[in-house]
């Protein structure tokens, strides 16, 4: 059975789950961690588990669902898919696991197994996949308008290509404009692709691997024509997909994949970027899962004994956006309690925002409350999808919290 073969690849990892349930927490090994208010020590950090409460909705429960599937106790079904999809695949369970189980990959493989077994799609997922098929984006927007936020610098041969992504192109075009203007201000010769299509992340995250592969092929073909040496992303989801998933399916990529956070942090180090205008606010940083722990988990790989290089990478990686923020005159950066690898997810990813908007909204609202408790007036992030969900949350809860993308902020102060 094809569906099972995907799960069987992970059998030895799945069976490692001893059901210790540490994976539901943040700081699961730091009970004495000092915080503020209700934010102290070990806290619940599984968005789906917190909302639904059934063991099946935590990472550990999903490992035992996988085991039951392998042992033939259960079969892929609509109700299994519904459980699996009520999870933003934020990766918290993976980074908390001391037995090194790649839970995020396993959850995605379980979703793919449901697809392979012919389990019908959630109607919302069906709708966005259809839009991807017709429009190359999940937002039901015309492909032709993908780059309408920008007047020039399209389809030119350039070493540097800015891969905009669907959310910034159609829903958060300020992020795209700000990123492009920053590049212009700093004198970079770059281009965006009129024929850019969805990176494939929305399809991959819900187990639609064949759809994602087609999108990958299209993007890689278009990128090949540009002769680009470096692809820049302002979207955490697109970046994660190019960095982690594209090589898995397409082999070594002929270009470098860089998120704008690391790109601008590097420019800061080289004094090319130097924010000069003040931003006199108390801000905090939301680590997007796809830019944060998904990347550090990828760098760690399967090794049980973490190398000093990986430890150093993790430390430096999470510092990059913080260094950028601290470089802005007048800014006061305070840490939200759950941060870095222990961050609370915004709740949008993994197909949750479209199919389970209540989970997405409640999760984002909890993040806003946590930022408020940290004493911040602005919450900064670097993912247009997180941005969208967090902005919606502030509106839903009538919060005064200002939510901004890092590149919007940076453009204002450079």
């Amino acid at each position, binding site marked *: 059975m094809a569906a099972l073969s995907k799960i069987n690849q992970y059998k030895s990892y799945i069976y490692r789950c001893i059901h*210790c349930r540490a994976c539901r927490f943040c700081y699961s090994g730091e009970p004495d961690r000092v915080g503020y208010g209700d934010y102290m020590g070990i806290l619940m950090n599984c968005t789906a588990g917190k909302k639904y409460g059934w*063991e099946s909705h935590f990472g550990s429960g999903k490992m035992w669902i996988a085991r039951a599937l392998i042992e033939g106790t259960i079969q892929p079904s609509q109700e299994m898919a519904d459980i699996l999809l009520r999870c933003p695949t934020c990766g918290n369970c993976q980074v908390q696991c001391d037995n090194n189980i790649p839970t995020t990959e396993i959850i995605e493989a379980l979703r793919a197994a449901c697809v392979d077994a012919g389990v019908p799609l959630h109607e919302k997922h069906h709708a966005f996949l259809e839009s991807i098929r017709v429009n190359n984006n999940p937002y039901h927007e015309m492909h032709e308008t993908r780059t309408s936020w920008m007047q020039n610098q399209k389809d030119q041969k350039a070493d540097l290509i800015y891969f905009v992504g669907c959310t910034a192109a159609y829903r958060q075009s300020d992020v795209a404009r700000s990123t492009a203007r920053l590049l212009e201000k700093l004198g970079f010769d770059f281009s965006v692709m009129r024929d850019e299509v969805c990176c494939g992340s929305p399809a991959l995250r819900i187990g639609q691997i064949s759809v994602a592969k087609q999108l990958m092929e299209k993007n890689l073909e278009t990128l090949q024509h540009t002769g680009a040496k470096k692809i820049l992303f302002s979207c955490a989801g697109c970046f994660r997909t190019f960095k982690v998933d594209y090589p898995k399916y397409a082999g070594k990529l002929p270009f470098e994949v860089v998120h704008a956070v690391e790109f601008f942090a590097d420019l800061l180090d080289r004094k090319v970027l130097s924010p000069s205008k003040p931003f006199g606010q108390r801000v905090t940083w939301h680590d997007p899962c796809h830019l944060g722990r998904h990347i550090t988990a990828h760098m760690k790989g399967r090794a049980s004994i973490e190398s000093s290089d990986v430890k150093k990478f993790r430390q430096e990686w999470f510092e990059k956006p913080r260094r950028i923020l601290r470089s802005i005159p007048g800014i006061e950066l305070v840490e939200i309690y759950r941060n870095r690898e222990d961050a609370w997810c915004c709740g949008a990813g993994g197909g949750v925002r479209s199919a389970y908007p209540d989970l997405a909204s409640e999760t984002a609202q909890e993040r806003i409350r946590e930022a408020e408790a940290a004493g911040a007036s602005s919450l900064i992030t670097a993912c247009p999808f997180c941005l969208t969900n967090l902005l919606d949350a502030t509106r839903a809860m009538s919060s005064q919290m200002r939510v901004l993308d890092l590149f919007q902020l940076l453009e204002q102060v450079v």
Partner: protein
Amino acid sequence: MGEYSRPTPRVIEELRAIVGQEFVTTSKPILASYVSKGIMGLECTIADAVVRPRTVEEIQRVLRVARDERIPVTPTSGGLSGGFACPFIEPGGILLDLSRMDRILEVDVDCRYMVVEPGVTSGEAWSYFRSNYPNLAPPVPDGAPPAATVLGDAIERGFSLVTNKYGPQADLVLGMEVVLPTGEVVRTGSWALPGAKPFYKWGLGPDLGGLFLGAQGTMGVVTKLAIKVLPHSEHKDLIAYGFETVEHMVDATLEVLKKEICVLVQCGNWWLVPTRIAPESEVSSQRDFWKKAGVPEWFSNFEIWGRDDEDLNCQRRIIHSIMDEAKRKGIKAEEWKLHPKQKASRLTKPNKIAIPYALFKGSFLFITWYTPWKDASQFCRIAEEKMANYGIPPVLWVASIDHGRQAICMPIVCFDPTSPEELKKVQDFNRETTDIFLSKGWLNYRPDPSIHSPKTFSMAREYFDLLKKIKNILDPHGIMHPGRLTLP
């Protein structure tokens, strides 16, 4: 067991009417997600329904439905008992998931106890006390991960962060509220008197509390627990000594234990180190390698808490002087200077120390026995030999209870859970050693229902018959699942 029923759709609707539509499920994937094998047991079966009550009244009503329909019920709080919180024979019946009952109801700083519901985890309890009562520590399990519940550990008579000083977790229990299988609610200790605080563990006449401690949920559903909280010290240290033989370790450690100063004393052999680092293929299993790395053949960790640094220094001096004296008597003992990070990882409570043993071969089983402290060396020698015979890495852990009046001895059996041959090997080892250990007068902790329980109770027939009679009084309709004790 043949008389048990499975919940019908009508019964499911009744249960939904009691706890709410969204808190009862028969979804196969959800039921499968509660299954657990490893750590403490290898056998468990899938429940027919999971019910998540929020109140005592809901539990009463659920039990009455189960009684009327003769459906077996298994209560679980955190589910950390490696399958012990799951039903193990067909039909699985109702799994009563108590995780929604997750409040710390009371902290009495004068009587120094807290009252918790079943779903309060040790991680949450620890954080709560650090924030609100930093001078007090909740008695959380040591080694069990932060999702383990305080109540679950206590009624299992588990191992806590202060077991050497105060005995098993159950010794700290001051009172319980229990919903009996008939739906009646009973409180134990001083709490049995209406209006009384749970300030005294002994109650009105003979104490009934013991019936629910170690009963693994077979006598009723414990819905509230009053348990002592302890002075929390900011002055802590861990002193480790290495020994060439297990006999030397046991004898020298006993002399320290007799001084009754340590909160926790844990010992073991060098195998404890590599088996929690990485898969077998990525880590050396050679003694020479670990010897060069400074890991002793056998070692004891003495965890001490002081009122202040002076008190701590005094305790340090006592331990070192006892070891000096032991050396003069010919015991080969040497202080094992631990890295500050190693110390910190052991002093952190609750910690995740016990979790990564699954890395080595894929899973593990803690097969746990109580012995008199002095017998621990003999226990280890037998276990070591038998594990070697079965090709099992001889990982051995020993800890003191009540200042060495008892020892808890535990072969950590690392095995490949995907291999039926390995599973058989583990159970064969378990069977053979059970015969030997029982013949020595040692007792199993959390018995395996197919190995330890039948063997133990076949040797203690009269006691088992009395237990059955008592169970029959409390549970006349026999709805509480037989549990690991195989109490019908």
